[in-house]
């Protein structure tokens, strides 16, 4: 993180090592906290796994299932068991399917990954371009238009936009499928992903546009650009070669913030478009009180975010010599 301590370059490797260890333990504590919060929220909740919650089940049937699922132990004991087994790398079995939790996550993770990764790439590429255009035309109509578009994108409820898209592109025009992941062909795949990606991008693209814009303006106002400009270089060249390079560096840092948001947005998008990812999985799992699966998905996603933030921080520190990740 930006405001972490900065050390001298001597013995960088050891410091890096220390940093890694420190970061690792911090992450462990974080995961522990997340797991405790989730576990207790879930287990203190009214209701139980759906298999026990059938309307016509009798008390004896419910008791039998609770026994099978090991739900008769006190919550603390169950958490301890879960934690010990999780530390050993075993996230348990899904209460709703009997499959290992990790298997269920791995069935869904590739789809969430595809969706969020493509959205992220598109957001960054398009967002940076729009941000640069915006900054270069500060306060002109291009800037105003892009700014307006960004605010609108952030303001329309995404599920509503998604349904309007389905009405338009799937039902009326019949251009794009309203649901599913597409068959094997690349064109099919692209068609299936078009709407989910666009909807998901409305929550990330504006942030990147605005961030790039203000980052560009800040760099442009810095002295070395002024110097370069006074030397008579053509303004556009200056912008591209100096400003952009420097302005992009902080844009990397915002990716860390965007990843959790993308994963959150995926819940809605996956539900509307029937996309078989982890977002839908956690909605189903928490409604069905599949305790182990909820725990597994939450911990998995937390690890995912921690790891990706870590990578972003490392890249950031490599790009910008003024910033140290550690």
């Amino acid at each position: 993180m930006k405001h972490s301590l900065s050390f001298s370059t001597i013995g960088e490797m050891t410091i890096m090592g220390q940093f890694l260890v420190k970061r690792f333990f911090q992450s462990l504590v974080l995961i522990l906290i997340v797991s405790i919060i989730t576990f207790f929220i879930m287990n203190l909740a009214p209701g139980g796994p759906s298999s026990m919650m059938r309307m016509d089940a009798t008390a004896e049937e419910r008791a039998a299932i609770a026994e099978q699922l090991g739900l008769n132990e006190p919550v603390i004991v169950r958490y301890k068991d879960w934690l010990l087994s999780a530390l050993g790398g075993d996230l348990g079995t899904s209460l709703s399917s009997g499959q290992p939790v990790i298997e269920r996550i791995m069935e869904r993770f590739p789809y969430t990954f595809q969706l969020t990764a493509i959205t992220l790439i598109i957001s960054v590429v398009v967002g940076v371009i729009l941000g640069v255009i915006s900054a270069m035309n500060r306060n002109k109509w291009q800037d105003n238009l892009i700014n307006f578009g960004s605010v609108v994108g952030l303001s329309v409820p995404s599920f509503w936009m998604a349904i309007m898209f389905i009405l338009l592109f799937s039902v009326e025009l019949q251009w794009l499928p309203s649901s599913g992941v597409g068959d094997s062909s690349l064109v099919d795949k692209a068609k299936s992903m078009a709407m989910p990606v666009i909807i998901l991008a409305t929550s990330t693209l504006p942030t990147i546009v605005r961030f790039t814009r203000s980052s560009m303006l800040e760099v442009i106002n810095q002295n070395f650009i002024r110097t370069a400009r006074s030397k008579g270089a053509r303004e556009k060249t200056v912008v591209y070669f100096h400003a952009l390079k420097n302005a992009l560096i902080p844009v990397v840092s915002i990716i860390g913030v965007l990843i959790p948001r993308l994963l959150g947005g995926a819940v809605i998008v996956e539900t509307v478009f029937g996309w078989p990812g982890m977002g839908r999985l956690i909605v189903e799992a928490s409604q069905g009180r599949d305790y182990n699966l909820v725990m597994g998905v939450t911990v998995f996603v937390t690890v995912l975010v921690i790891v990706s933030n870590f990578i972003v921080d490392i890249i950031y520190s490599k790009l910008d010599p003024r910033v140290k990740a550690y």
Partner: protein
Amino acid sequence: MSNPAANNTDLNQVRVSANIKKSTAWTRLKKNKAAFSALIFLVLIHLLIFVGPFIWTVNPDATNPAGMLQGITASHPLGTDDLGRDVLARMMKGGQITLLVGFGAMFFTVLIGGLVGMLAGYYGKWVDIILMRFTEAMLSIPNFFLALVALTVFGKSPLMVVLVIAFTSWMEIARVVYGETLKWKESEFVEASEALGSSSVRTLYKHIFPQIIPSIIVSSTLGIAWAILTESAISYLGLGIQPPTATWGNMLQNAQQYIWTTPMLGVLPGVAIALVVLAYNFLGDGLRDALDPKHRGGK
């Protein structure tokens, strides 16, 4: 579920000079067309929503199955919904709840975020480490997942929805306030006040807090927009505030069933949400510019 709009303050921490006169900010805001129209729009819509029900006294919960899904009529200027209720009355009543959820969530967001940021920034040392580490931790948790679990589990009362939104959005404000506090802590008058023997609580309250008010105002404005949007998203998943209490979010969610036959039912709350959120976003941006002339390059 972190607050997207507030991120913009990360880089350009709102650098408000202590002696910006309110009047200058107000003049600047007035010059910003988008923000000023947003402000006027918001004043009008709040008047409509909070005063309107005294004039249009139709009971928003009164059902009438015989008169459902009607178009515009004299007795129902915006038609009726799927249970024959008056849409105008429900839009106003629902708007009240939606905006109150927005304000409520914003209040708790600012309260938690402000306290965490100020305490961490002012006291430093282990307070800083614990609080800001915790803030970072919360930022990297996929909050929406936790929020889903919490709402599934604890029910969907308006207060619960407010708290869940606040609990998952306070971190950005904490970081902004933290940065501001750090900066002002070093300033001469704070040091002077400490030298004169003021208690730390007093210094914090008398000298630092007033300085960070502008950034809090900006964050709160954007925070309301975010809370309204979040309420509609959790309503879509069936985890929002439940009927018969109307909110724009659950009206929109309910209208989904009718997109095939009565799409108008979804258009009203959808547009209302979009416009109000848009207006708060514009106002927030405008306020940032007005309170911090450097930000948008002296517009």
